[in-house]
């Protein structure tokens, strides 16, 4: 079953198509079984459905494969996008965005944080940062940005599920939240709270370089 990228493309486009399709189907089945084994109750029928949906996306897209990575890695990524999107849809299908993001929810930034390691000077900066963010959320963000921010940041809702409920798509919602982050970043700068002072006040050791790479605290940072 080992093929080079060129052999995969030739086979899927030519006379060996049936055999190549069978091989690709088997490969995606194995791949998704590995990818989804930590995702709870997934049946073999689910995996088979995901593979079929993935093939429907992969085959018309062969011309877009640039050959920078292995063909199989490229095919896996498409299958994983298909499967995880469907699992997110199932997980959030009974959740209403309006119920989740009530008006009081946008008031999710505390006045102070209990930080036993912070000095009095650091605590003063922390309070200024939190106050600036609260004000900027209220005055600088649009209602849509606030709603999306609460759903994603406070409730951990999947981006594409928030997007679907807001009548948009995942790319557009990412851009909406990216713009929201830029506005909050700007608000801190305009208040005289440069990044290094903010990070220092909160005891964040990570180097944050907005336009030359970024850092995170452990795992789980999200828009």
């Amino acid at each position, binding site marked *: 079953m080992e093929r080079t990228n060129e052999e995969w493309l030739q086979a899927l486009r030519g006379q060996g198509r049936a055999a190549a399709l069978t091989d690709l189907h088997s490969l995606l089945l194995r*791949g*998704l079984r*590995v*990818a*989804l084994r930590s995702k709870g109750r997934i049946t073999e029928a689910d995996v088979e459905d995901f593979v079929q949906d993935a093939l429907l996306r992969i085959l018309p897209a062969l011309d877009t494969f640039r050959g*920078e*990575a*292995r063909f199989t*890695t*490229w095919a*896996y*990524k498409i299958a*994983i996008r298909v499967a*995880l999107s469907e699992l*997110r849809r199932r997980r959030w299908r009974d959740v209403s965005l309006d119920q989740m993001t009530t008006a*009081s*929810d946008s*008031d*999710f*930034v*505390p006045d102070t*944080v209990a*930080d036993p390691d912070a000095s009095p000077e650091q605590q003063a900066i922390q309070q200024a*940062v*939190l106050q600036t963010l609260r004000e900027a959320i209220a005055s600088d963000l649009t209602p849509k940005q606030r709603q999306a921010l609460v759903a*994603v*940041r*406070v409730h951990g809702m*999947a*981006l*594409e599920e928030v997007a679907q409920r807001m009548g948009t798509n*995942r*790319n557009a919602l*990412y*851009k909406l939240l*990216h713009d929201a*982050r*830029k506005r*909050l*970043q700007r608000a*801190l700068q305009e208040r005289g709270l440069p*990044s290094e002072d*903010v990070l220092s006040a909160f005891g*964040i050791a*990570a180097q*944050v*370089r*907005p*336009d*030359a*790479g*970024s*850092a*995170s*605290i*452990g795992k*789980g*940072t*999200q*828009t």
Partner: protein
Amino acid sequence: MSNGKLGLLEVKRWLVDVLSTRTHELDCDECLDQLDLYVEITLSVGSAAEAMSSVQCHLDHCQCCREEYEALLTVVRVLR
């Protein structure tokens, strides 16, 4: 989170998220477009964060894409 307010760790994560914002960032499809190469570089040299910093930046900010990246990394590592 308690009483509907972010706790200290959540505030810290959010601050990193805000402060690491770049002027221009990839969207989810642009990230997916490069994700296969990103994973192969990661498995080959240990990290692709420097070579493909724009993808790394998007993954830092997008939980969905990060979940897909981690799944792809696992699959390629196990089945290669």
